[in-house]
């Protein structure tokens, strides 16, 4: 607001967009007002841009003036605390309105889904949903993983581990190798602790 007032002297201001970083073209207005931000001032006419460019030589522009002060410090926080106090009636009305809308929307969607149930699309495919007579698996990651897991277990059951002599030898060898590895690891850890003087009791 104050920005558009400020630049009004250069020409008619159409809108002011504020974002966190330059170049971001997201349409959401930053809700939290802290920190440094970038503002895009859109003028009605190109002449405004020219005028704004010429401005910089005339010294800094003041945002906070006598007539339109920008609240900072205590007064700002008090105002925001006061703003955080909500009017119950208003809130209630808003909630009710939203929920009615929402219910309506959901109902519409459901009605639409029910209409499409079992109707093949132009390629002749029928979409399987949870609602139908034969609900399919839900398409979630967890379900997929479950299926994979079951497959794996099935395969593992078929495999024989201690059947051949070489398998037996292999496991033994692996075990010893593991022990050796652990021994080495422990030695290293001890060396590390010694380096850190972990063994000086006092």
């Amino acid at each position: 607001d104050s920005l558009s007032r400020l630049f009004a002297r250069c020409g008619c201001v159409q809108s002011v967009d504020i974002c966190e970083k330059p170049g971001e073209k997201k349409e959401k207005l930053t809700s939290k007002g802290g920190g440094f931000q970038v503002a895009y001032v859109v003028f009605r006419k190109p002449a405004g841009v020219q005028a704004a460019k010429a401005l910089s030589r005339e010294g800094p522009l003041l945002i906070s003036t006598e007539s339109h002060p920008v609240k900072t410090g205590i007064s700002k926080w008090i105002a925001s605390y006061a703003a955080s106090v909500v009017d119950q009636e208003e809130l209630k009305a808003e909630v009710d309105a939203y929920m009615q809308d929402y219910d309506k929307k959901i109902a519409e969607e459901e009605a639409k889904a029910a209409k499409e149930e079992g109707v093949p699309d132009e390629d002749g495919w029928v979409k399987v949903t949870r609602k139908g007579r034969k609900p399919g698996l839900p398409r979630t990651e967890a379900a997929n993983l479950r299926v994979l897991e079951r497959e794996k277990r099935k395969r593992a059951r078929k495999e024989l581990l201690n059947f051949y002599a070489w398998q037996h030898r292999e496991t033994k060898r692996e075990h010893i190798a593991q022990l050796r590895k652990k021994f080495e690891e422990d030695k290293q850890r001890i060396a590390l602790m010694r380096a850190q003087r972990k063994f000086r009791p006092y």
Partner: protein
Amino acid sequence: MPGPKQELGTGISQAEMPCSGSVRKRALPGESWAAAGTSGQGITLLPLAKIEELLKEVTLKETKKKKIDAFLHEINSLLSAIPETPETELTDQAWLPEGVKVPFLQVPFSVKGRFRFLSPAELKVVGSYLLGTCIKPEINVDVAVTMPREIFQDKDNLNQRYHRKRALYLAHIAQHLSKEKLFGSVKFAYMNSNHLKPILLLRPQGKDEKMVTVRLHACPAPGLFKPSRFYPSKNNVRTAWFMEQSTPKEGAPEPPTPHYNNSIICDTVLLSHLHFLSSAAADFPGMKDGLALLKVWLNQRQLSKGLGCFSGFLVSMLVAYLLMKRKIVKMMSGYQVLRSTLQFLATTDLSVMGISLAKDVDASLPVLDDFHQAFEVVFVDPSGLVNLCADMTASKYHQVQFEAKRSMEILDDRTVDGFQVLLMTTKPMLRAFDHVFHLKHVSKLQGACKKMQLLNELMDRGGNYVAAALPFVVSLLARGLAGGALLVTHSLPQISEWPIDAEPPKHKDVGPLTFGLLFVPEFAAGTLEKGPQADHPEALDFRTFWGEKSELRRFQDGSICEAVVWQADTVCQKRLIPEQIVRHLLKLHMDIPESSICYTGALLESVIRTGQEASGTGEEAMVSVVFPPIPMKPIYSFHTRIRTKHLLLPSEEKPCPAYIAPLKIICHMEGSGQWPQDKEAIKRIKAAFHLQLAELLQQQHQLVCRPAVTHTDVYKDGYVFRLQVAYHREPLILKEVVTPEGMLKYQDTEESRQLELETLHLPYLTSSLHGLQQQHPAFGSTCRLAKRWVSAQLLSDNISEECVDLLVAFLFLHPAPFTPPSSPQVGFLRFLDLLATFDWKNNPLIVNLNAGLTDADLTEIKNKFVAARSRLPIMFIATPKDQWSSMWTQERPSAQILQRLLVLASESLRALEEQLMDPLNSQDVKMVFRPPLDFYDVLIHLNPNQIPRHLESVDRPLKSFSRGVVKNSTAVKILFPVVDYDPVQCYLQELRDAFSDLALFFYDKHGGEVIAVLWKPLSFQPQPFKVSSMKGRMVTTLNNELVCIPNVEAILEDFEVLGEGLVKSIEARTEKWTI
């Protein structure tokens, strides 16, 4: 290594170890250490190797041994060259030159007998050096100097004549040796601080001075005294002489002087003890290791120094005893020796059932009962004459026993790293005992001796009133505190060495005497001590014990009993009842004035003045309520000041209202398919719930409520509760992502994680901690102290409260080697110690809440931790519900902050312990709660007017602004107070939003008056010009290039503008940096 299986108990089962036997055997000895630091599947050499490393660290190296041997040879030749002196009266000490004083308190001075110096008959090294069991840090070599027979006359055993001669002998040696260049220092000391036994300390010249101390003991020629004169029931100090009366009183029997006798007889057996020990240590390599471990164990518990200590020599004799009794066999390893010895100590009470090393029972020798009558703790040496534990008090032995028991528990507990806990952790009194108090002036004990009529004991102890009175003081306290105290113990009086030209230290030079009290957790429960019924004979005894505090009371069951009632209203005061008891008893029975007792039980508690101990009250009406934070903050209620509409608002002109922290309550909605599946819709539903809840509470319970979109605030009895409705599926809905293929995936988002933390994990954690609080009443206060300290050091925004909670919970759940703290102060000290010493880089901190983790889980966590170290947060805390993510420390603290925290913790701990252990100075314990500010670059001073929590600050402001007083109004129509309004926090938020990439902001949220700012050094380096990084920078030219540097002046001005009305002044400390 045959058959030590029964010793080692349940370890690795056979099934886990199908492979070679050799590996298994090697793993055995250290197996019980195996718990921590091991790598899971059982077999590891780590524990064993740790012990070996420790032994390497503490034992003497061969090269040093050679040096020491050479040094000893030189001493030998020097000693035999000392000139002899003509015979003089004992009291005529004019022949001694100026530069040396007799190392003995000659009270009374006059004594018969004649003395001359003759060259020593024999020089022998005795003690641990020869056995190879002496360990660092103090390498002592004991040398026995045998005084030739010709020095002595008849009846030298009487009236300290022997002691005087010994002292003169040493003085003469000292005087000659002090002229030699060989020695770095020649000093006197008391052996184990026993003033009846002076010794001469010799240290080599130059840089080896620290290496070794040679202790010269003068001892009589063998066969000089008849042993029967020194039986514990015999008298060797005449009352008339001691009282300096000319004629002995007729008829009165002379009292026995067992301690005096012991002090002579133990000089005669030095050599035989050496032979005894060396025969025990022969072909027993494990003994050497075991003794080294035991000595480290004793040292860490501060039991091995001072009068009546459990010295290294004593423990060697104990191991020899166990060997004799076949409790230990020569095949055992060092670890097994340690374990068996601790087991023996834990189960045997030497103050009731003494033990003796004497093999053949000679009918003429005194029996154990004689010893028990004379001494508190009995351990008789091989000769059957000397009590090795003569100076030890029963309470000291009980402490040793307690420690041994505790250590055995730790060894059996596989979840604790026994090695670290038993041998590497020191247990100073302040951290080990719940309450510690000092007797500032031990000379007051003189009066106590008089009052208790301890003349005989004084005579026996050669006038040492501290040693004479100590057992009585301790037993008095133990009886008085019997209800709550687990252990009452005292510090060992210690007298340091002194130069040879100084007078020997007096008894009062032992400095303040410290007593430690260990309590059962429930000790703070009652204020009343019920005695026997009024008409019972014990009643009189009870009355005399408690004095005028005892009064008759009628109890509910109709009985009329003697009882003592202590004044205590709050929990905090109840914790201090022991102080009242101690002060009262010492005054009543010992004539010790209150002013000379310095009680440091709860000095710190003033920092966390709690108005009320808050707890979730008055919410009985609600169903399925989870109370989150066990309220940790002092809570102040609010009094109306300004009214606008129906509630209160802060105003500009008046000081800002006192801060009210809302207590959060989370209500879970019931799961139902009816609830909407959309984020926005759920928000509305919750808002509707909040409105409805507020309405219902207002109507049905007449509570004042204020609903908002995200919560409903409820005011009741001075507290504000913040009701939040939560829906358990909401985090899931927030996580939902639909992939392009139409698959539903769950992905953690910032929002969902936050919500999960708040509604799921926090309530769980809180309820677990609440359970802990029920078990350990000191938990809450310890948490508060810890948090207060963290925030006083301005770091509270950099470490989450839950993280501090968990750290404190760790202290209570895994207290080894201590017991769980029963007072906030000791808890806080251990918290600082934990912070300062825990190795965050290499170890996860596992807080086993509700014992929810099994052994297997623990090892798994440790292994995964090692594997994934680099990806985990710097401070990794695992709990049963949160084994892998350490959610409370994920974002903060950063490595730098943690480092700073560690430094601060160790410094605070040091300063605090110094203050608490030094009763003579004024104790300003709040010092550690005042942050050092010289470290920061900019200080923003705030206007106290606008700090809502000003009253919570460490140094409570003398006068603060009226922010209203506690008003527990039950009136229905009251105005809703200002809740959760803290301008300073708003200010900090804005500062961080704007300048977080340039500087760090630190603030004590409990009423600090200063915001400290630290520039980030990286951001001060000139950077190339870029539009996106122009925040707070200005363009300059450097080497003809356009660069940006922070525009500090403008930033400082911004600080002021942003905090208009709140900022008083900004102090830029430009000495560290330039604009």
